[in-house]
Structure formats: C-alpha cells, structure tokens
C-alpha cells in the first residue's frame, strides 16, 4: 500500500471510529485485502485430477484464497476456475462431519453418528467375517481420487486386488487401449499432447475449454496465439469450435466415418508421411485396401459434412504434419466402438507422423522417485479379472460396472466394497438399480467421501474424509513435458471429525494386523523419506511447493532414430494382429448409429469450466458461479415445440425416465437433431443443500448404454430424449 493511501485509510478509520460502533462495523469491508497477517502454504489442487500446484493464503488465520504456484510448469503457474474456488470445498457447510453407521429398527433403516473407533471396529469385524466365510480376496475398491491408493494398499495387504476407477470405463479407457494397441503405450494422464508447438490441432468431440484441464487449455491457448489451425468436429458449436478455422458440425455418432474418410484422403492423395510410415509402422497395405470404399462422398452421406470440407481439412492436416495433432480426446466412451475409434485416431496420427514429434505427441518423463519401502502384499488367491470381466481379456484395468455387477446375486464374487471419492450413481450411467442391488447383497459397503453425495445413502458405513486442504497426500510425480515434484500439505486443521485417507486406511490396518503396510506415525514421514532420496526434503518442499527437475531423456524421436515400440511387432500397428487374434476387427470399421425416434433428440452432454462432474455442484463458490445446467435447444426445435427461452421443462428418455426440471437455453450453437446439457447436475441428496434438485442429470437418462466389446467402456452418447412440458 502506498503511503498516501494508507494515510487516507487511517483517516477513514478515525472518522468511522468517531461515528460510533455501528458505523465502524458498517464499513468493515473497507480494509484492503492482504493488509492483515498473511501466511501461505503449498498445496496440489484436488478439485479435478490435473493436480496443479497452488499456494493457500490465510489472512489473520482465516482462509483467504488459493492461487497458482508460479514455479509450477505443470499448471503454468495458474489455477483454473475450480482450483481458484477450491476454498469452497473446505468451507462447504454440507460436508460430512462424523462417521455414520447404518442401523435398523422396527421403522426401517437410518444412519446414526458414530465415533471413529466404533466405525472402524465395525468395518474390521465385517472384513474378518467376509474373510472367514468367503476368503480374503472378496473385497473390491472403486476409487476416483488421490487418497484411493491408501485403500488399495490396505485391501491388497488383506489379499483383495479387485480395483476399478471410473476414469477408465467411463472416460479415458478406450483411448488408452486403442493407443496401446497401436503404439504399445497409452496416452496417459496428463495427456502427452504437444499442443503448444502444434501447427494444426484436430479436436473430435473434445471440448477443451469447457472441459477445463488446465494444461490442455493453456497449451491450446498458446497454439491459438501462435496462429495454429484448429479443426473442430462437434455436433455443437463448442467453445473450441468458436476458436476454429474449420468447424465440422457432424451428425452425432458418425465420427468414425469421417476418420476413415480422412485416412482415405491421406493415403489416396499420397499425403501421409512416407518416411515415418515406412520406418515405424506396419499394416499400411491392409489399411489402404480397407479404406478404399470410404471416400469423402461416402462419408458425406453418413456425417452430413461437405466432401470438399473433408478433403480440405485432410490436406490442411497433411500440410502441417508432423506438427499436426489429431487429439485423442479424454472422455471417449461414446458409442461402444470407442476403442476402434481411438485406433482410427491413432492411425491417423501415425500417417501424419505426429507420435513422438514436435507439435504432435511428446515423450513424457517423470522423476525417478523411490517408493517408501513396505512389504509385498500376499499373492492373489484368484485371478479376479477372469472372474469379474472374462469377456474383456484385453482390458488392462478393472471395469467399474463389471465390479459393481459382481457385487450382486447369491453367488456374487464381491462381498465387501469400498467406494472412495466417486459418486457412482452420477458416474456410471444407468447404474441406480445395480447400486441398489449391490447395497442389498453386499456384506459390507464403505463409502469414504468429503460430501454427502448420493452414493453415501447406500453405504453401511460412511467415513468423512477431510478435503485436500487439510491433509498430506502422495507427492505429485507425473510423467510429462517437464519432470517435477509437488507437495500437498495441510493448510488448515481438518474441520469437524474428518480425517485424511492415509489415517483412515492405517487405522483399519491396525485393526486387521496389517500395520506393516503403514509403517509410519504420520504420512509426512513418507514424503520426507522419498524427498530425501532425490536431494530434497519436506522442509524444503514446504517452502517451495514445487521442485522442477531436468529432463534426462529426449522429448521427441530423433531424426531417423530407430525405435522399438512396445507392441508385439515392435512397430506402430496400423493393423492390429492382437485384435484379430482375439476375434475383433483388426482395422476400424464404421457402424451407422441408431437414429432417434420421432420427436426425440440426441442427448449430448459435456462439461462446464465451473464444475468437475457432480463433485463441485455444492461448492458454494462454484455453485454461485454456475448454479444450474440448462438444456440447449436449437431455435427451430423450440419453435416446433413452442418452447420459450428460460422456461423449465423435463427431459424424458424412450423408457419414460424423467429428469428434474431443467431450464431451457435456446441457442444456435446446437444442431436441430440434438440437445445438450452439462454433466454433473440433478443431485437428489437432500444433504447437498445447494445442489439438491437443481438441473437435469444426464447419467439418469442414459438407458441405452453401448458397451465397448474390447475394453468394456460404457458408451453414453447413443441416448435420446424428448421434452415434457411443465403443466
């Protein structure tokens, strides 16, 4: 503060003080921010999974703000909307406060408050009883959050390896499997896209910007600043589309036809990178033959896109190659042929020579950080994947809905389920009945969360975790452009009786005589030990928050470098023998999508930058920014139905399921055959006092789940809805 302003301010203070206490309190807001006692501590944001490093500010011992850590290359030193609103997660008055136990009396079941000892004893005793009756391999973990690993350690120590995360079968799975089949490697999170150096970026249904993955948004923005060409394929005029040179308003469900046509043009016009393809790939001949029928004129009939536009965009991609990125997308469980579509994208990138090249996909690197030594868990008694998801031999991960299904029935394999930080009814489409049945049949269901999300209502025991601002977690060490380590440490004491995940898992371990897996008093010891292995320490990291390390390997392929890819052939597999051997199509095929019944519309859904799925809808700061979702309707459709802007109606799927009432937004930004809503609204938990009953839930309306036969993903974009007016 400058001296003059300070003097003026003092004058005001005196004047208000003289005017009496009412006046003084009346103007208490006048004090300038940051003029009190300010303290800071480092954190890693946990509002989504990008893991940006931030700095938590307190003024006079009260939470003030969170800002990006300037040293963090991972996040460009800036947090996104939700990260900035992270304080709201701590402040949320609806947080889970104490452990809760489900109890029964003659009137039915209800939850009652319990002490930690009581809740943990109960869980341990049930786990023991499951072990005795069915074996120690009958517990499963569904997790979507950074503390999940502690429970994985616990359950593995117990002997149960069954584990799934919805980010696989409900989100990124198809692209990881599709790319692994092609390149022998997954794309991984964070995405190894080199957008800041791209000359041409192709986004297919990937609405970066609305889906606010910080690094993705920042590098896309950098590409725009450098005048890269953007090509966006989306039935909706997305934010990315509005920044693009070419917007391809594709007919929903026909992306594969476009991809095949692009491959057709690249090959038939000789536009692909001959050198790259010859050196690194196999299967070009088969591919060439395969795509012959799929010319742009054929694709026009499927996609509704002008054949010339298809050719122009293909040529534009080739012109900028290899600095052309055909983005693999992130949430790609759409139509059930998603692994194959991801394969097509992988193939397209291979033809352009962008994998391993500047402006395409870089080679990520992380810090070699030793694990804290703990004993090996006991060997698995059974091969759980063969039992639970036998129809998906190529799936490298647990499939959440298969795990959930294995919780039901008399012969259910799973007898106890831990659900950590994932609100299953909003995460797995059309899963309510499965969850209800599982809750009936399981001997034990434990939900660990910070918020009273819907899933807590099905638990036997609810454990309140503290937020990321009140706990230590694993060190951030992500494979990316620039290796770095970052620290999450408590900025505040845990509110209410909430506890960190590591503590909860450790306390359970003690009760199960598994404490050898948690050999520390405080998780901070683990962090300090690990940091000391790389010449740092917890003390140092408490000041720095982030420590950047030099890369030790090249970020791109060197010119003419011979690479052995981790595929069976050692090459990039345009043609996949693995798929063929397992009875799948070795080359991607197009299946026309089912069309909506009369008076029904494609249900498109997506993200908004203000929220992370449904988990932030009750965060007061973010609720205030975006309290509800709206259904986007094209003006022509609105005219047909005589729907007005701003009115409320309900959406109904062909099976008759009705959504909450949802506000109408009439906009040209959506195709007349489609509607759009932002995912994550339509909560029904009364304990979420802000979010309850607001907006429509897309997950609830998804009666038509198109399962990917290769990796088990739940395709969600084949759903239809119609409108039901409020009478």
């Amino acid at each position, binding site marked *: 503060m400058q001296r003059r302003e300070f003097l003026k301010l003092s004058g005001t203070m005196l004047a208000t003080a003289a*005017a009496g206490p*009412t*006046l003084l309190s*009346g103007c208490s807001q006048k004090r300038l921010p940051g003029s009190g006692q300010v303290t800071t501590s480092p954190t890693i944001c946990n509002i989504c999974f990008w893991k940006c490093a931030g700095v938590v500010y307190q003024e006079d011992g009260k939470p003030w703000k969170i800002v990006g850590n300037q040293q963090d290359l991972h996040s460009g030193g800036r947090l996104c909307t939700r990260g900035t609103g992270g304080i709201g997660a701590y402040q949320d*008055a*609806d947080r889970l406060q104490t452990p809760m136990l489900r109890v029964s009396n003659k009137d039915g079941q209800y939850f009652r408050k319990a002490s930690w000892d009581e809740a943990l004893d109960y869980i341990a005793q049930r786990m023991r009883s499951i072990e005795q009756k069915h074996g120690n391999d009958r517990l499963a973990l569904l997790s979507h959050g950074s503390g999940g690993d502690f429970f994985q350690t616990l359950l593995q120590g117990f002997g149960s390896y069954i584990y799934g995360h919805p980010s696989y079968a409900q989100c990124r799975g198809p692209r990881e499997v599709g790319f692994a089949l092609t390149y022998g490697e997954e794309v991984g999170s964070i995405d190894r896209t080199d957008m800041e150096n791209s000359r041409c970026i192709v986004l297919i249904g990937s609405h970066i910007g609305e889906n606010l993955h910080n690094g993705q948004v920042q590098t896309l923005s950098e590409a725009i600043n450098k005048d890269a060409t953007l090509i966006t394929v989306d039935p909706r005029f997305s934010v990315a589309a509005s920044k693009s040179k070419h917007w391809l308003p594709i007919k929903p469900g026909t992306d594969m036809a476009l991809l095949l046509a692009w491959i057709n043009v690249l090959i038939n016009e000789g536009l692909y990178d001959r050198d790259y393809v010859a050196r690194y790939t196999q299967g070009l001949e088969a591919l060439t033959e395969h795509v012959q029928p799929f010319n742009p004129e054929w694709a026009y009939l499927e996609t509704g896109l002008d054949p010339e536009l298809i050719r122009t965009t293909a040529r534009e991609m080739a012109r900028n190659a290899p600095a052309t990125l055909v983005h693999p997308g992130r949430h790609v469980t759409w139509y059930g042929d998603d692994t194959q579509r991801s394969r097509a994208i992988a193939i397209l990138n291979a033809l352009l020579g962008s994998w391993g090249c500047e402006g395409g996909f870089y080679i990520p690197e992380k810090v070699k950080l030793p694990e804290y030594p703990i004993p090996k868990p006991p060997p698995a008694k059974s091969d759980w994947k063969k039992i639970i998801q036998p129809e998906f031999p190529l799936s490298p991960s647990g499939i959440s809905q298969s795990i959930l299904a294995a919780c039901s029935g008399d012969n259910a394999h799973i007898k106890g389920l831990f659900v950590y930080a994932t609100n299953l009814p909003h995460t797995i489409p059309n899963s309510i009945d499965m969850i209800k049945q599982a809750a009936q049949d399981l001997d034990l269901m434990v939900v660990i969360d910070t918020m009273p999300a819907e899933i807590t209502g099905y638990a036997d025991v609810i454990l309140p975790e503290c937020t990321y601002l009140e706990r230590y977690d694993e060190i951030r060490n992500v494979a990316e452009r620039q290796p770095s380590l970052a620290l999450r440490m408590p900025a505040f004491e845990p509110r209410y009786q909430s506890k960190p995940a590591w503590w909860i898992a450790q306390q359970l371990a003690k009760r199960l005589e598994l404490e050898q897996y948690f050999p520390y008093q405080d998780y901070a010891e683990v962090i300090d030990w690990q940091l000391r292995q790389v010449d740092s320490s917890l003390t140092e990291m408490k000041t720095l928050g982030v420590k950047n390390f030099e890369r030790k390997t090249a970020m791109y392929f060197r010119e003419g470098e011979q690479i052995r890819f981790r595929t069976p052939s050692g090459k990039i597999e345009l043609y996949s023998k693995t798929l063929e051997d397992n009875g799948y199509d070795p080359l991607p095929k197009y299946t026309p999508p089912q069309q909506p019944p009369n008076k029904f519309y494609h249900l498109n859904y997506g993200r908004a930058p*203000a929220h992370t799925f449904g988990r932030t809808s009750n965060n*007061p700061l973010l*609720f*205030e*920014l*975006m*309290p*509800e979702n*709206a259904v986007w309707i094209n*003006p022509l459709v609105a005219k047909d139905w005589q729907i007005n*802007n*701003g009115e409320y109606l309900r959406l109904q799927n062909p099976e008759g399921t009705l959504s909450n009432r949802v*506000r109408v*937004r*009439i*906009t*040209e930004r959506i195709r007349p055959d489609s509607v759009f809503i932002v995912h994550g609204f339509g909560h029904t938990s009364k304990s979420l*006092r*802000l979010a309850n009953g*607001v907006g429509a839930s897309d997950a609830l309306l998804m009666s038509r789940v198109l399962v990917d036969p290769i990796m088990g993903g739940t395709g969600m974009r084949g759903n239809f809805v119609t409108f039901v007016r409020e009478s």
Partner: protein
Amino acid sequence: MIEEILITARDNAKVDPYLNIWTWEISIYLFLGGMTAGMMIFAAWAVLAKKDDLAPFASNKLALWAPIVLSIGMTTLFLDLEHKLYVWRFYTTLQVTSPMSWGSWILILVYPVAILQVLSTLRAGYPKLAQLAERLPLVTPVLDISESQKRRIALASIPLGIGLAIYTGILLSAFSARPFWNTGILGPLFLVSGLSTAAAFVLLATRAHAEKLLFARIDIGLILVEMLLIALFIVNLTTGSEAHLNAARLILGGEFTLLFWGWFFTLGLVIPLLIEILEVRGSRLALVTLGPVLVLVGGYLLRQVMMDVGQVSTWTQYESQYDMQLLQRLER
C-alpha cells in the same frame, strides 16, 4: 440472431436483472419537490402581483404548505438512502459536476426562504396559528420583519422555486447512462408539471370562485405546455442514437406504452384538461374536483413513469442464463 447472455451468475442488488435503484421514494420526492417549487412561485407571484383579492389563498395561505410538502419529500428521499448514517456527507462538500450535490445545497437555500415566505404571510393567512406562535418569545418581531420584507422574500422565492423544479429534472437528465432521461427537456417539463400540480393544489384548497377560475385557466395553459414539452421530449428521443431509439421504443409500443399513454398522459393530462376546460366554460359538474385530483395523480405518475422507464432504458442489457433465485440457497 444475436444471443448475448451472462454465463456467470450475477445478482447485484437493484442492478440485476434490470436497474431498480429508485422506486416510489424518489418519485414522491421529485413530485413533491416540483410541487413545492410551484407553490413557492405562485405564492410569490400572488404577492408581487398584488392578487390578494382575486387569489386570497395563493396570496396568504399557500406559502405555509410549501415547507410541509417539501419536508415530506425530504423524508422519502432520506428513506431511499442505503447508507443513511452518512447522510451528513452531502453537506461536507460541493461537487460541481454532480446535480445531486447542487440539489442538496439548493434545498438548504430553499428551506429558509420557504419558511420566510410562511412567516411573511402567516398573520394574513392563518391568524389563529400566528397568535399561537406569538406566545413564544421573539416570534412577533420575526413576523414583523418578515412582513416588512414580504416583497423581497417573494422576489427571492421565484428563482429558487424555478431552480428547485428544474433541478429535479436535471437530476435525471444528467445521467447519460440512461438514454430515456438524457434530455434537457426534463428540466422545463418538471418545472411546468410542478407549477401545474401547485395550481391543482390551489384549486382543491381555495374556496374563492374567482381564484378557482383563475387557477383553472392557468392550469389549462400549463397542461398544454406540458403536452408540448412531452411532444418535444419524444421528438428528441426518436431522433437520437440507437440507445435513445431503444429507450423511446419502451413507450412507443414497448412494455411501458400503456403506463405512459394510458395512465400518465390520458388520465393525468388529457382528462383533467377536459374537466378544467368544462369548468372554465361554466359547467357545474360534480366532477370538477376530480380535475385537480387527476392533475396531482398525473404529476406523480410523470415521475413514476420517468423513474421506471428510465431505469430500464440502458446501454447494456444481458439476460442471465440462470435462475437467480437459486442463489438464495447460499444463505442455508
């Protein structure tokens, strides 16, 4: 199609969804302020023109009502302030660019003169009240001095009255941000309306037939001038920029058309004009008292219409994408 919407929720009090900062308190204040000005001017005119016989009420009794009416207006003005304890701040400064600052100082000048006007006519107008007052010390000499300076006081009242009335209009017209208000015609319009309402007050209050006729004639003239000014006001708006045209549309087919033309113009100007014309022509209709009542109603409606339409007329208007009622949940 242009779709321009707020995509972050904004619920700024009295700004969203449209400007609604000033309601009846300010309309009443502007109405009573104008009427006070008219009263002071007519009372002064009656004194200066020696109309004791023809206009006994205006000459001797009208002055008393000016400070009373003004005080009611000042009260509603105070009620409107959001930060009431700081009202004294008006009188720690003169902000030369602020009509409101000028206005607050004009009021400081108007009050003593209005009271002097009362004092200079009190014995003639309200002898019993004067007797009561004279029981207090010093009142008699004060009344004596005031009466002796009666003409001078009247001379001072006229410019102050005109200033007060015009200021109530300029107060609004100085807001370039509200296109509907942004015309200098509001000053004279509010002056004429103020005079008209003061005339109506006299019509209701006087028992002298001759005074009634005189003020009915005056009021007819004032209403006609007011109509002319309204015509000019509309010409001004409709020949302005896009923002002004949009503002004009609000009363020319827009949502305020009925309020403006039906209520204010017809009920508040046309009908009383016709009634007063009938009265002057000698009709002894029972509804003659209705004329001045409607003039008063019209005078208030003019300010209310101006208040409502002016605040809706704007340079920037965005529709919110959300139901702002939801934000009330934050008070859980």
